[in-house]
């Protein structure tokens, strides 16, 4: 890598004129972005495949079967289809916002991947405020969703956008509170510190540290479902009510961005859940046996499977009930989790 960049600098007059460190930095960023982009695309692609396959089997069907063995390449076919589709912008839409919106949503979920601790060494940047960074960056997505809903100039999209705003803002509170309970233990916001605090086997995982944190994990997970608009909290999209919510008017490429962001976000929620409560890349036993990445991915994908499983089981809530769940159920319980954990530590 270094030789490659040095070679580039040697052969390029412009690169010689800028400081060497800057070139290294730019190269690093470009490489990371490229790698992450591939990872993310693969994730969302395989995520959709898993979703359809699991849904199919749960419904006594088979799901996609025709592209590749057992339809494994279906997501590629879908992707190619979406990318080749005509790019339609409604005549009365706010063109600029309409074009920017999917990019904002996508980059928000993309940026969250920076602090995901895949293993003890594999992390793009172990920010010392990692968890705070996640919380703040994931809120950016809602801006994109509102932009999309507003710019579409469609009443259904607007409804979807308003629902999304209300929902994501409300559910950030229980998420943040249940995260605080974990931070009480670690005293650090860094993702790697949180994971390392859980090293040493199953009983060291935060979910099993005390009964309150056990509850806290479920609170986090439920609020996380709402955060990424999954059933039973998929009101912003609500196919049967709002047609397709904020992305009603989107098609082709731009729709693909929304779609990918959704699955990318799904994995982020699972990944953070794994990091905070399920020991991250730590194994079940004190001796890891398998590499950290495998543990991390295994746990993350299991949570993702539960998300899919829930989606094909549950009906959808109504807006006021959604708010009820957030403010009257999850919020009091997450306070309970914080106080309970604090008391547990004290005693």
């Amino acid at each position, binding site marked *: 890598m270094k030789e490659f960049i040095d070679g580039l600098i040697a052969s390029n007059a412009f690169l010689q004129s800028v400081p060497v460190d800057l070139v290294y930095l730019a190269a690093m960023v470009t490489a990371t972005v490229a790698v992450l982009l591939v990872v993310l695309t693969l994730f969302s692609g395989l995520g959709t495949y898993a979703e359809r396959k699991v849904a199919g089997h749960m419904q006594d069907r*088979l799901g996609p079967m025709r592209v590749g063995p057992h339809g494994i390449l279906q997501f590629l076919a879908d992707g190619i289809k979406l990318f080749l589709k005509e790019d339609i912008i409604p005549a009365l839409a706010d063109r600029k916002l309409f074009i920017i919106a999917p990019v904002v949503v996508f980059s928000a979920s993309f940026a969250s991947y920076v602090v995901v601790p895949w293993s003890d060494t594999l992390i793009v940047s172990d920010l010392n405020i990692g968890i705070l960074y996640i919380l703040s960056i994931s809120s950016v997505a809602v801006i994109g969703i509102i932009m999309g809903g507003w710019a579409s100039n469609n009443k259904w999209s607007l409804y979807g956008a308003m629902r999304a705003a209300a929902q994501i803002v409300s559910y950030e509170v229980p998420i943040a509170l249940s995260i605080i309970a974990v931070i009480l233990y670690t005293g650090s916001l860094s993702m790697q510190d949180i994971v390392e605090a859980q090293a040493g086997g199953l009983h060291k995982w935060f979910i099993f540290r005390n009964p309150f944190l056990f509850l806290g994990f479920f609170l986090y997970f439920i609020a996380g479902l709402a955060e990424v608009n999954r059933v039973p909290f998929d009101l912003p999209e609500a196919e049967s009510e709002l047609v397709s919510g904020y992305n009603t008017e989107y098609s082709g490429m731009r729709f693909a961005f929304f779609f990918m962001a959704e699955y990318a976000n799904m994995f982020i929620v699972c990944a953070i859940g794994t990091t905070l409560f399920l020991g991250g890349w730590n194994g079940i036993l004190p001796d890891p046996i398998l590499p950290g990445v495998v543990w991390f991915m295994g746990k993350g994908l299991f949570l993702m499977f539960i998300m899919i*499983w829930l989606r094909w089981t549950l009906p959808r809530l109504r807006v006021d009930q959604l708010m009820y769940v957030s403010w009257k*159920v999850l919020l009091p319980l997450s306070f309970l989790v914080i106080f309970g954990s604090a008391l547990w530590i004290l005693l």
Partner: protein
Amino acid sequence: MNYLREIGQAVWTVLVGMKVTIGHLFVPAVTLQYPDVKWTTPERWRGRLHNNIDDCIGCQACSRICPVSCITIKAEKRGKDEEPVFTSEESGKKPRKLRVTQYDIDLSLCCFCGFCTEQCPTECLRMIPDYEFSVYDKKELVCSYAVEKSPEKISEKISEKEGEPEGSSG
């Protein structure tokens, strides 16, 4: 208390539902991989209308009963000097006194009720199991079965052809 009971109820019913769906994850699929595998159609299946024109006696029973008038038939008497024509063995060697010069079924109008096939005396009009006949143009759904041409028309055409060179030269 009620509050806690409701939360408990919600969690419990979610778990019950999840049990149902996970159970189905390992149940064999009931669907069929359609274009590769197909269901067998039952004997009484009402698919595409097909007329075996060799057995058709031009009685118009089918076009009369049709509730949507999708069958158009034109038939004319055969001349006395013509050789008599009969239907096939299976339908009983009935004399075909009429020459069917037009037998069109517009499948885009057909409502697949099967009245016509019940009326057909020679059972030449049947509904065959074929159900895959989607087309890009509605006009392609008009099926013409008649093969015989009216003798006058044939002779007219012959005379036209014969007349043409004369006309052009003259």
